[in-house]
């Protein structure tokens, strides 16, 4: 029996905070405003997942937009086997990887990130009471860390960025990347180990 958007919409609005499942059902019944609520709710998570993959905020926004539109068009195929957020993030990740495969875009991104790295030392000096030396060391460490993260193998970097963003659970990351949960944990741990080792070899950090 078809869902009646108007009544359900009223019911949903009466509730304090309609969950994703209710909004999805409304959207599937043709309520575009319900999908708009889902966009507002997940825009940040989708954007950051795209950003973790493509590296550029402008491109990440394009990817996030494509992901939302694709999700809207394929909403009828969503069966609720996973959460809507997980399903949406999986779409986002596929879109982002497709975007990343473009060589031209990749070259542009590398050029931008290098320029950003070079501009960082002055921009990133925080207003703190630490000594000038400490501040410069911390800034240098952060700059080097960002460079090393960029240089990580892609699988380790993707997983570390997604995990470190604080936006997603490990389960969500596993679904997004289509890998087992244990592999997510291993990749995060391995990424940190590689970063530690490289910082140590550069004398920027001593873990002992």
């Amino acid at each position, binding site marked *: 029996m078809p869902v009646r958007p108007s009544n359900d919409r009223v019911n949903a609005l009466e509730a304090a905070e309609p969950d994703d499942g209710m909004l999805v059902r409304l959207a599937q019944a043709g309520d575009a405003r319900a999908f708009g609520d889902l966009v507002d709710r997940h825009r940040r998570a989708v954007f950051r997942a795209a950003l973790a993959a493509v590296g550029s905020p402008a491109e990440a926004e394009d990817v996030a937009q494509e992901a*939302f539109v694709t999700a809207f068009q394929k909403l009828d195929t969503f069966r609720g086997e996973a959460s809507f957020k997980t399903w949406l993030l999986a779409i986002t990740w596929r879109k982002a990887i497709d975007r990343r495969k473009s060589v031209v875009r990749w070259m542009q991104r590398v050029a931008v990130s290098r320029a950003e790295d070079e501009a960082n030392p002055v921009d990133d000096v925080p207003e703190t009471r630490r000594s000038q030396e400490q501040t410069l060391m911390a800034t240098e460490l952060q700059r080097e860390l960002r460079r090393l993260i960029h240089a990580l193998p892609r699988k380790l970097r993707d997983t570390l960025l997604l995990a*470190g963003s604080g936006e997603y659970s490990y389960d969500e990351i596993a679904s997004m990347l289509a890998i087992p949960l244990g592999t997510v944990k291993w990749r995060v741990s391995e990424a940190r180990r590689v*970063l530690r080792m490289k910082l140590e070899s550069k004398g920027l950090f001593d873990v002992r």
Partner: protein
Amino acid sequence: MSADLDREIDRAVRSLLDAEPSEVFGARVRASMDARRPHRPRMASLIPAGVGAAAIVLAIVLAPWGTTERPPHLLAGRDVQLPTPVADVAGPHEATVVQPRQTTFNREADRKRRRIVTAASIAEPAAAGIDALTAPKPLSVDTLATLPPTPLTSIQPAPLRVTALDLPALAMPSDAARGVDR
């Protein structure tokens, strides 16, 4: 120290992802949604792709332009003119059968086909002046030449009806050698 480094790594990761979608992001998405709203009802999504592909192939095979020889079962019961003209008669028992246009898709002129025509092929032999019992099988050229445009039940030869009188002629030598009395 290791915990400090982990904090530094977390800080670096957050700084790499320290960006927000623009203020107009939601409006952009909504505009794109309006532009690419899915069609309803979505019957196409209910039909498996294989069924659709098979239907397309079948339509092409059965279409007039997809065949040079239309399967007989599609011709049965249709009005077919014969003979046209007698000069086209190729053999003692063959006539040129004009296959009329059968679908609105066929823009070509009616095609001529040679078929053996028997009395059983004619829908109403009496109306065509043919005695189905005595007429030769297949019909002779002379008979065909006198026929007006006549509806046919089929342009395929009718099955040979074996009568008791035909049996001696059809008896195999081995039957005769074994003394089978028919």
